């Protein structure tokens, strides 16, 4: 990270309430948070703590009930659906627990899906090389292992050179070895491109990779830990 980090996301008083009347669920209860350019942040918390809701609002997949989210000085909480679609297309890379690859497209084509519409993308081949899948480019998702599929998803997410990379439980469906391979790919993107990276997990071991670890519970940020030094993904064990 730079010495004087620039704020990418500025989150102020975000609340999210699902349902109406007596059946309301407060997913977020007033979250304040700044995310800086190039930092690696891990959101830690139990299931239902609100971390996925926060990530979805940051990525323009969901809207806040109240509060403000600014992305590089633009307040995205007031944007229309079409503006949010454009925002996701141009600035945000998503990696989900389930890879969400298009089954009828090869790995290369799944990545090309994004590079065809991005403003200044890297080539699909380059993106796939970044995640060590240069030998599996023409395979269909059904011909790839879970870890390989997740790395295709990462290649797709980073191929458009997004401003932020948002990962929701990227290793949740993987065994340790392939999970580490996926984390190494994410770590490499963060370090080589300086992409602001947010990783949701409930695996506390992964927190060692982050610059900051944000603990979320019951819709609120309980604590933020700053790691003096980050450990390599390859050194993680769980």
């Amino acid at each position: 990270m730079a010495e004087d980090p620039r704020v990418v996301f500025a989150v102020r008083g975000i609340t999210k309430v699902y349902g109406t009347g007596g059946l309301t669920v407060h997913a977020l209860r007033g979250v304040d948070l700044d995310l800086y350019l190039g930092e690696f942040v891990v959101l830690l918390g139990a299931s239902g703590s609100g971390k996925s809701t926060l990530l979805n609002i940051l990525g323009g997949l969901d809207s806040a009930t109240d509060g403000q989210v600014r992305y590089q000085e633009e307040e995205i909480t007031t944007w229309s659906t079409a503006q949010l679609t454009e925002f996701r297309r141009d600035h945000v890379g998503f990696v989900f627990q389930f890879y969400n690859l298009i089954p009828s497209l090869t790995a290369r084509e799944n990545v090309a899906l994004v590079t065809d519409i991005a403003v200044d993308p890297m080539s699909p081949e380059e993106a796939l090389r970044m995640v060590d899948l240069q030998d599996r480019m023409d395979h269909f998702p059904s011909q790839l292992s879970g870890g390989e599929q997740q790395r295709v998803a990462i290649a797709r997410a980073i191929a458009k050179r997004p401003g932020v990379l948002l990962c929701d439980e990227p290793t949740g469906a993987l065994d340790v070895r392939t999970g580490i391979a996926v984390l190494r790919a994410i770590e490499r993107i963060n370090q080589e491109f300086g992409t602001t990276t947010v990783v949701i997990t409930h695996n506390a071991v992964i927190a060692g990779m982050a610059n900051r670890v944000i603990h979320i519970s019951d819709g609120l940020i309980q604590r933020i830990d700053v790691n003096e030094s980050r450990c390599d993904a390859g050194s993680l064990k769980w």
Partner: protein
Amino acid sequence: MNGNLAGIFYLGSRHLARQRGRVVLLVAALTLSLFLPLAITVGVNAVEKHLRARSVSTPLLLGAPGSQLELVFNALYFNKPSVPVLPFGVSREIARETGATVIPIHAKFQARGFRIVGTSLDYFRFRGLAVAEGNLMARLGDCVIGSGVAKRLGLKAGDRIVSTPEQMFDIAGVYPLRMRITGVLRPAGTADDQAVFCDVKTAWVIEGIAHGHQEANQQASSAVLEADGNHIALDSSIYEFQEVTPENIGSFHFHGDQSEFPLTAAIVIAPDAKTETILMGRYQPGRAKAWMHRPGVAMEELFDTVFRVRDFVVAALAVVGVCALLIMGLVFALSNRLRADEFRYLANLGAPAATIRGLVGFEAAFVIATSAILATAGTLVLLVAVPRLLVHFAV
């Protein structure tokens, strides 16, 4: 993917390629659902047009008492050989009394699978038939072949064609006659292309009513069974000619009363409407020894029946088609349900709603459009093929 058609086409086509087995089944089902009613309607209409044109152009048809429809098919399409026999004298009587042109038709025998039609030269004028090669028949034993016969059998003017014996093992039956082909007709696109035309007298030779043989007074005495002045009866050792040649034509002769010689039908062209009406009255079906018919009316009755059946079949197929469409709708709905995650993720990636809707519609549009194109192409092929098939099957 950002709402443009190329993106939709790319993603949609890749999905279809991956699901090609299912897509082929859907296209096949819908194509058949569209094609069958279309084909039946178009096919029946084409047959009707073809049959009607020939029947309407034939004003009156004379035949022995019997089925009107069989008579029409015998005289116009040469494919019902076993109609009751019409005595030649009746047609001659009509011609003499009314001045009508009466064209005899004797369509009973075959030569190498093609109908031999005994008629007169008036027939060619009446049908507007002209020779593409050679000449019309000039004497007994000559024939002119339709273009389809020439093409199929590889025959030309100057070649010979032999009539097919009716009974291979009947030694007392009709002997085959080797006919000289004097000409090949131009293609007409009708049953005439598939027929062998000869003079009606030649047809009678084939039938065994006329024949030529060695002179009786030149036979050995052992062959003479009975001799009484000009009447000489010979046994079966006498040599009968199987081909009419300039040398033996003089020996060909008829036995019996020519007015009783058989025809299968006669085309009657009355000189005026009044004569036509009188003839229709005089030879009214059910009341005379020969019946006069208007072929157009006979075919109308056939078409009425055919159309009723066609309408019923098309209606049944339409119901089947609607069922096929409903099942297809269900398949698409289930397919889209299975692809819900794919659509959601495309939206997450930044695909506009229009792209998602486009993808949902693409598969259905592709299947419907492909089926419609195939069904239309099939129908067009049928439109071209039906007249050829009708001629091929001598209809």
